[in-house]
């Protein structure tokens, strides 16, 4: 029993939350609200997928918001829009994804070859991409006129938008990568014991750069889907993605110290966080307190998940 709680704690917490909110509010368990929970979870889930591989490798990436905003702007000015005359149609999607991949790979490569902590490199990258997004922003707010993009958010199938279905697909693909590819398996191993892998001749550097590139791609996709949802290009569109995604990964059991967790755990974390937000609003908590709640959740989650690692002789920076 205690083993079950230890290994499946986050899942049990999610189930507990859902039951709690369903009992105490009439609205939480309604189909339309559950659909809203899934819609709200979709984009953070995509970001969390990218972050998960990085966190498993014991690195971190703070550039989420910048990359997503940049992607959103690049998309909005390269598809049919109300401001610029450029229109490359759906080619904008692979273009934007490439931007994300390149930014991510750059972060990874700088961190590894210049030997700087990923925390700092991605902090710099966060600023750089925020600035690039602002530089690329045209004079007026670009409305995205490409309906094949906006319909992703508008068209609903069985009550859910294409964004949610796309997220499901991505979760399945990422799970396959995590469980069955050398990259996925080695990512967790790198976080657990990098020196042994290096001694065994594993190309650790390649796996690390790949993780950052993949994550950059995920943030870019998030930027595209944000564009679909809000229908415009906005330099602030990615703001607010970073903290919930990191919190979600940690909540689910993907520790910042690396070597643990995975896609499934991170997705449970996303659902916990989104349900908590949604449920608290249903109960009547002030939405303005939302970020305070998330902040507290981050601290409690990290402290709780690493409590057993506490030692007096331990460097905590």
């Amino acid at each position, binding site marked *: 029993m205690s083993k079950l709680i230890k290994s499946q704690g986050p899942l049990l917490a999610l189930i507990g939350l859902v039951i709690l909110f369903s009992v105490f509010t009439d609205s939480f368990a309604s189909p339309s609200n559950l659909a809203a929970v899934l819609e709200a979870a979709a984009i953070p889930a995509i970001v969390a997928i990218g972050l998960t591989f990085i966190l498993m490798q014991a690195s971190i990436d703070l550039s989420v918001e910048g990359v997503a905003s940049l992607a959103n702007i690049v998309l909005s000015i390269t598809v049919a829009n109300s401001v610029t005359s450029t229109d490359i149609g759906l080619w904008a999607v692979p273009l934007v994804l490439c931007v994300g991949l390149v930014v991510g790979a750059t972060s990874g490569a700088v961190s590894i070859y210049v030997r700087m902590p990923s925390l700092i490199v991605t902090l710099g990258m966060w600023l750089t991409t925020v600035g690039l997004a602002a530089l690329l922003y045209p004079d007026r707010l670009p409305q995205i006129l490409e309906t094949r993009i906006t319909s992703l958010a508008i068209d609903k199938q069985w009550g859910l938008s294409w964004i949610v279905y796309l997220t499901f697909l991505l979760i399945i693909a990422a799970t396959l990568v995590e469980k*069955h*590819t*050398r*990259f996925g*398996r080695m990512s*967790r*191993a790198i976080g*657990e*014991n990098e020196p*042994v*892998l290096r*001694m*065994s*001749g*594993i190309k650790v550097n390649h796996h690390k750069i790949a993780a950052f590139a993949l994550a950059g791609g995920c943030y870019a996709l998030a930027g595209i889907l944000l564009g679909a949802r809000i229908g415009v290009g906005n330099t602030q569109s990615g703001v607010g993605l970073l903290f919930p995604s990191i919190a979600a990964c940690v909540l689910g059991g993907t520790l910042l110290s690396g*070597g*643990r967790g995975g896609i499934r755990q991170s997705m449970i974390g996303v659902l916990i966080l989104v349900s908590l937000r949604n449920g608290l609003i249903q109960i009547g908590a002030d939405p303005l307190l939302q970020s305070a709640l998330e902040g507290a959740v981050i601290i409690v989650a990290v402290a709780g998940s690493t409590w057993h690692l*506490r*030692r*007096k*002789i331990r460097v905590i920076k």
Partner: protein
Amino acid sequence: MTTAFSLEGISKRFGEVTALDNVSLELNEGEVLGLIGQNGSGKSTIMKVMAGLHRPDTGIIRVGGKVVQLRSPLEAAQAGIGLVHQEQSLITSLTVAENLFLDKPAGSTSLGFYRWANLRDRAKHQLDKVELDIDPFTPVSELSFGQRQIVELAKVLSLEELVHGHMVILFDEPTAVLNPPEIQALFGQIRRIKHRSSVVFVSHRMDEILEISDRVYVMSDGRNVATRDKEHVNVDELYELMVGKQRVNRTDRKPREAHIGAEPALTLKNVTVPGEIDDISLTLAPGEILGLIGVQGSGAETILRTIFGIADEWQGKIEYFGAPLTIDSPAEAVAKGIGYLPAERKTEGMIRNTSVSENVAITYGWQHGRGAGLISRGKERGMIEGWVRKLAIKTPSIGHRIDNLSGGNQQKVVLSKWLFGKTLKVLMLDHPTRGLDPGARGDLFAVIRELADQGLAILLVGDTLDEVLTLSDEIIVMKDGRVSARITDVQAAPPSEEELVKAMV
């Protein structure tokens, strides 16, 4: 008998310390060679040379008669040499099968995706060889330590499909974490693989060496002092050989003039740290030097760290000048007058990238300050220079970075931090002379003696026999976390080195 592997005239130095001094070793086909020696005798270094982890400064390595260079573990593996690690090198979040082929990825993936069925078959084949009946897809984290050790062995044995000819398998203290049935299972495996490989087996425990080896190879002070066939082993002779050159020059042991206090400074009653030390009791009086000795992992260091408030959990009772000692951090220990010189000088002792003077003044500098937390660098300077002279610390100036000093001088700087204050009553020294040259050792010995003569109570974990024999008033020998021998009055009735070694291994 054919020689499978040989070392000829291997030497290896680390800075000031000679780890291997012109060592030769021959390993016959199908034989188990038991390697025995004290801490620091060079047995770990010789294993690392054979496994390609260290490159020797001089000497030749031959495999099957041919001279080879072993520049990395990978090259050693290609020559048919595999090391079964002491500290486990398995990745616990991966499955057994993945671990087995971690360093030999060829053929296990296609287009980046694992070919699980293929991996399972190959892993099953390797596990069958060592008769380990587990699912190859079990995560290593779910295995016992004994099973993990067998998986390590299987990982090394999977070499044989890659190399033609004879193999050399090295075991570096594989039994340290195993229980008796697991040790027997491991021995079974070693006997089974003898027909196609030679084995070098290192252990701290004499009984294990005698049980499994065909020949015993004794090391002392970085040299091979004897090789004995199993039939001609005399256990007492082995102990004597292990002591080797370290035999204390009896004239070194000057009679102590100190008046040893009647009331104990420190009393331990039934102190236990789960998994490390078990039911330790001892007393230490002002002016006394109590020497603890034991092989690595015997728990001697844990005693010091428990008293200093670093142990995460412990049971039992510690009394300090008659009152119960309840401390939870080094800061509290220091406030009470207890000091600790850690064994790990680089990570725990010295504050790197910082000057000699800051290293000395970090603990007690405030005692010489102007009050209100203000420090007086002028006053400190004079005192620090005094200690530098007294301990003969070779440094261009006290503003010099500690990193640039030699190991012995670094150690003296770290020691002077404890001598800098006015309130120290108990000083605990954890391997104070580790890695120092003979000259620096002699200097430190003299300082330690003088400190005790001035009334400090000293608890010492020795690196070598001569250290504890030369310095101590009382000696406690530790083995597997327990006290295995006590010599209460060293001055009156000095024990023989053999007696101590027997209690240690």
